[in-house]
């Protein structure tokens, strides 16, 4: 199986601070890869470098065989690599359904004249967007809230909406930055099922930053551990759980 995403020797330097130092990882198709590490280890910085929100100081990011480093974030997203953020970043004053319509901007009809005169082609395109949005709302159980303002949803619902908003763009790789943060155990279990379902039924690969070890160990195919910006270990959940270095980094030396 080929690697969907291949990251080699990723380095990010902010002035004198080496935030990421030589991190390598790869994501195969239909694989769930988790990035874990103590707070401030540089996990989100790795995400930001891969998704084009930072321009990495060094290293290679190859997605579907094409180099991505240095490309702006929106172009990388269009290639099929879509991410969420640690804190929920919904379009709060827009309705739930509008959030999903905006996300499909790339699939929408952009010809202004067609829009002004409501040509059949334009109507068809808009209907496709609506149908896809409705489909995903149904999947994450938010269909009844379609016309509610996104900011008024409960926190767990906002998290689910964020994932639905990524999925309507039809990504190949979904990058979730701490999706379980602030969720109760029940909601975390639902999230677990949702991520498995996305992988199994929709064929997306998932990259995950997460602190909830139960979730990480349960669903990951592969885990990468980062400590103080540098790679510490990588392997299957069982290997990571048995790795003395990882235990030391998390719990400190005795």
């Amino acid at each position, binding site marked *: 199986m080929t690697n969907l995403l291949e990251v080699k020797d990723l380095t990010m330097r902010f002035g004198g601070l080496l935030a990421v130092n030589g991190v390598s990882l790869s994501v195969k198709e239909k694989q769930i890869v988790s990035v874990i590490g103590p707070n401030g280890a540089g996990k989100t910085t790795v995400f930001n470098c891969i998704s084009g929100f930072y321009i990495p100081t060094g290293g290679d990011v190859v997605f579907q065989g094409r180099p991505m480093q240095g490309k702006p974030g*929106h172009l990388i997203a269009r290639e099929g690599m879509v991410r969420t953020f640690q804190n929920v*970043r*919904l379009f709060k004053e*827009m309705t739930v359904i509008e959030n999903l319509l*905006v996300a499909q901007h790339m699939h929408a009809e952009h010809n202004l004249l067609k829009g002004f005169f409501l040509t059949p082609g334009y109507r068809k395109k808009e209907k496709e967007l*609506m149908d896809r949005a409705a489909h995903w709302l149904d999947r994450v159980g938010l269909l009844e809230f379609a016309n509610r303002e996104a900011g008024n949803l409960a926190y767990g619902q906002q998290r689910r909406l964020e994932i639905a908003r990524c999925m309507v763009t039809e990504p190949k790789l979904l990058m979730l930055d701490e999706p379980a943060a602030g969720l109760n155990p029940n909601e975390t279990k639902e999230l677990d099922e949702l991520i498995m379902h996305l992988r199994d039924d929709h064929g997306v690969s998932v990259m995950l930053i997460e602190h909830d070890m139960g979730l990480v160990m349960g669903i990951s195919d592969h885990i990468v551990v980062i400590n103080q910006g540098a790679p510490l270990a990588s392997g299957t959940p069982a290997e990571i759980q048995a790795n003395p270095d990882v235990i030391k980094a998390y719990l400190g030396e005795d």
Partner: protein
Amino acid sequence: MQSRFTSALFAALLTLLLGSLLLGVTMVSEGIDLVLELSEPHKIYGLIIGAALVFIIQYFKQEVGAVTTRLRGDGSFEMPAFIRTPKQQRLWGFMAVGALLIFPFVSSRGAVDIATLTLIYVMLGLGLNIVVGLAGLLDLGYVGFYAVGAYSYALLNFYFGLSFWVALPIAGLLAALFGFILGFPVLRLRGDYLAIVTLGFGEIIRILLNNWTDLTGGPNGIARIPKPDLFGLEFNRRASEGGQTFHEFFGIPYSSEYKVIFLYLLAFALVLLTLYVINRLIRMPIGRAWEALREDEIACRALGLNPTVIKLTAFTIGASFAGFAGSFFAARQGFISPESFTFIESAIILAIVVLGGMGSQLGIILAAMAMTILPEMAREFDEYRMLLFGLMMVLMMIWRPQGLLPMKRPHLELKRD
């Protein structure tokens, strides 16, 4: 209770102190000396009444606060029962259009004139609303595009003899071009910084028009800009060379009112067109992208939307409406000078957008009416009228910070399967 009384008394005394320096004494020259004298009794009385008012309001602050919170409501606004369904709304819309079409034929010339001015501000408010209300980019130099539109028509007519109808689209395009040019340097800016740069841009345009005397006539402006014609029919008393006048064509006696009514109807048509275009735009992908940009630029990028393009389209399309409004303004006034495009104009247009409720089109129309008609009605207060105006804005922002009619989200029907 005690502290309530002291703080109210303190506020009242402070008012008295500050007020007496400003209003209570006047400087009179005696020979080469200036001496201070007490003002006329009515000013002193006014001062005392003012201080008493401050005392009462401060003393009953909690009670006043309770009233204002009730007035403010929870931010939501429901249309009255008879205009709630889309069908009823359309009916009321048609009735409003009908009433506004009949209006110039049944009212005085002065009223029609003010109405025309109001329509210009409606157009400007709707255009700026794209940039500020929808895309969330604070633009304090919108008047610059208005000036570009006005001078486009005036100069194209002066140098090349282009008629209003030819110049109108060109003015829109030129203003759009300037919007595009302004868009580039401010792409990386947000909030306060953006506001300052746009403010500077508006001033640059005005100062340029003021100083490029060879081209624009400088502070003297451009005079004798012809009025628009109706399919070649002019509204003057006498036809220009090779032209024909409206009253001769229809064989009716000349009246200067035809011109005023025609200008009103023309402005009304332009506003309707603007409303239609913007209404379509906000329901199209581009309009949704504008709002998404206002809400969260980073999330936009993560979803593959290009913030650069979205910002540029907002500036460009917003500016083009100012261009149309500007060329109409030039045609209506017949004379323009840089004086018409000072910062205060930008501020008024922005106030219309904010008072109306960001993003809400009906709100903007109401606010534009309030901002142009109220100052006219309050003319008898002469210099105090601007004071009243300011007071009204302060009170509005305290009571209804969300504007007259906050924007309502469109309700989208989903097919349930």
